[in-house]
């Protein structure tokens, strides 16, 4: 019944968009036609762009929650990565020159620290050799990625990409902290998630103030757009799908990839088992603890891409006033995850729905309609509440929110 409701909501949304598109053709010049005229390719592109932080948070949330750890700190992870991306980019490019060298050093330092933490927590294996190979492999992969980026992009663009990678790693480190607190020290997941959010809400404006003397950062370069040569010439879909920001492509790749990993790989099977029946997984000889760590760290990686993708992808600065530039997108991502019933495609669709409302809100503001901005800003939030009320409780994984103790020790 719930799934019917979900489909119904998607269908209604599709029909509304269709009717509006038709209205634009049939009644040009009328109020309705004018309203419908906002729905053009530019609108679709901005909806897709705005769905980036929401959808990545949702994808991360899916992995964590399916493994049995409810990560409601996603909003905090988005804030941390949005800030870190801009801070590092400003450090590397702020004085007009692009310092690629220090960027690589910083990136490798964070990678090494993460590898050491992972080894100390016993996540990389049991023997020293395993730890060295896996930890060293991770650091080496980071180094190769950084080297490739520098080789392929000009110095300023490469520095911005290095800042992006650093932001993703810092977000992962924050997720590791959350994982240690909830898995190792059995903290309540909801309270710990709230704490991650509130810490980020304090740390980002604090650090902005320390570095720039204000809660908002100065502007930095963005990651620009990637234009696919021939395909971007296609009518309608061309400018939306093939002349987009890099992070939008990442999202279009990450959604099916997440679905494939969850549904068709043994890691995905372990994640699902760890959330549904950890005892059985344990009996089968898989370390539940490591699976849960991996899933929570993945939620950190995804949120890092989403948060830095917002600040470095398009905006090119960090806004730390009030609820920061993230403005609840992590919470909306959690709702998208619930609405999509923990399915990556469903979560992506729901994120697109919320983002299209957000884009509509921005568009209507530009058109100077009689409805005041402050009321229009509430549209996405009100929709989230309506959707939650309609979809209600989803079938959460059986063991979500519970600790699992192996009886070995």
């Amino acid at each position: 019944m719930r799934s019917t409701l979900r489909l119904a909501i998607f269908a209604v949304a599709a029909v509304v968009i269709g009717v509006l598109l038709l209205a634009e053709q049939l009644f040009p010049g009328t109020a309705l036609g004018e309203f419908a005229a906002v729905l053009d390719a530019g609108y679709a592109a901005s909806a897709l762009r705005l769905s980036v932080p929401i959808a990545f948070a949702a994808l991360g949330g899916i992995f964590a929650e399916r493994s049995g750890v409810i990560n409601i700190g996603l909003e905090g992870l988005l804030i941390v990565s949005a800030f870190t991306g801009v801070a590092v980019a400003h450090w590397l490019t702020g004085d007009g020159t692009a310092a690629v060298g220090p960027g690589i050093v910083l990136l490798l330092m964070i990678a090494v620290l993460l590898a050491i933490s992972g080894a100390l927590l016993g996540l990389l294996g049991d023997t020293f050799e395993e730890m060295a190979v896996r930890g060293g492999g991770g650091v080496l992969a980071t180094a190769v990625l950084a080297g490739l980026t520098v080789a392929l992009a000009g110095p300023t663009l490469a520095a911005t990409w290095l800042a992006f990678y650093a932001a993703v790693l810092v977000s992962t480190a924050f997720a590791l902290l959350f994982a240690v607190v909830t898995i190792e020290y059995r903290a309540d997941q909801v309270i710990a998630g709230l704490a991650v959010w509130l810490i980020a809400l304090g740390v980002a404006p604090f650090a902005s103030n320390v570095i720039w003397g204000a809660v908002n950062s100065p502007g930095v370069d963005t990651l620009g757009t990637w234009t696919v040569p021939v395909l971007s010439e296609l009518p309608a879909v061309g400018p939306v799908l093939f002349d987009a920001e890099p992070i939008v492509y990442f999202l279009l790749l990450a959604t099916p990839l997440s679905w494939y990993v969850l549904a068709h790989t043994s890691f995905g099977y372990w994640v699902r088992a760890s959330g549904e029946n950890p005892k059985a997984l344990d009996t089968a000889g898989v370390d539940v603890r490591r699976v849960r760590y991996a899933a929570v760290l993945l939620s950190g990686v995804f949120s890092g891409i989403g948060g830095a993708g917002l600040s470095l992808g398009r905006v090119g600065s960090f806004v730390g006033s009030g609820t920061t530039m993230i403005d609840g997108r992590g919470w909306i991502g959690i709702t998208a995850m619930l609405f999509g019933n923990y399915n990556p495609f469903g979560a992506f669709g729901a994120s697109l729905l919320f983002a299209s409302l957000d884009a509509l809100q921005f568009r209507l503001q530009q058109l100077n309609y009689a409805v005041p901005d402050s009321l229009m800003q509430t549209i996405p939030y009100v929709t989230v509440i309506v959707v939650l009320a309609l979809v209600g409780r989803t079938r959460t994984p059986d063991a979500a929110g519970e600790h699992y103790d192996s009886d070995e020790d």
Partner: protein
Amino acid sequence: MNTDRIPDPLAGLMGRLVDASAGERLVVSVAALFTAILVGGVVTLVAGVFATCSNPSLGIFCYNPFAVYRYLFLAPLYDPFVFQETLKNSALLLFTGLAVAVSFRAGLFNIGTQGQLVLGALAAALVAVWVGRAVPSGPIGGVLIAGVAMLAGAVVGGIYAAIPGALKAYADANEVITTIMLNFIASDVAFFLVSAYFQKPGSGSVETRDVPASAMFGPELALAMAILLVLAVTYILWGTAFGYDLRTAGIQPDAADYGGVDAKRMIVTSMTLSGAIGGLGGAVWVLMSVGRWVNGVPALGFDGITVSVLASNNPLGVLFAGPLFGSMQAGSLSIDFQLGVPRQLVGVIRGLVILLVAMPEFFRTLGVRWGMGGGR
């Protein structure tokens, strides 16, 4: 150790919190507070390396954590202005901390105290201005205006909290997300209402007209009211049948249902009570601190979460945790002006306290490792 297979994660948490003895929870809270202060000090020290020094005598470390904590905790003792601010903040945090504690006790994560406070404050300011026109000035008129305004704040805060309560009870909508969304909506709607209809003429910022001076009161009276409210709520929770139902509905909904309590209605009632206290806090903010509703309401609702969590959601504990954070909030302005340390540091400490209180296991492990016995 896998015996507590209670399907609802909240029920598991509440069970664990109840299992822990009061003394153990006190130790955890104190240890968490000290650890948060320690970590906050390290953060301050490290942040100082990246800052531009106003006082170069400290070398590369621009910020001195000891000076920071002296301002945060001791400034009220020797600075009369900070003392007044501490009293005000303490009173307000008693209201918001209590509001959060009531909902957490009922097993509901009301993160929306902030929004309930914002709208409660707006209602109180508007009612005070409106009633103030009809009521003659003078002390009796002032008491009347303040009374009606606080009632309005409580009613609006209560109704606004009843919405997520009803959504939780009858539509199973997760109250953490709905209350956070309602926080965003509250500040946008309040901004719209004031800028469109209730704007103070000639003012550059978005604010209402001033409430009558006779209706304003000092922090001492506000503190007295807050303490009385804390005692009253303590009595209600532990001394009445209603309070018993509220607590059991939170800890064991099935048991409460079996005992004849309408658990769904109880959810709405507890949320309404929590929101009414938050709205009352908003009214006190208007009548004690600012004298009108002005855009940019401080994050008293979020601080209330920390106060409540630090107090193990115990109203009497709020009496200690509230003034502690009241002092820190008052001192945060001083560290900004006097030491150049951004006042958002208090926000960092706020989050750290919640994180650390949430992990009692960490302190148990430490206790065992340091040979203090105990453990599990």
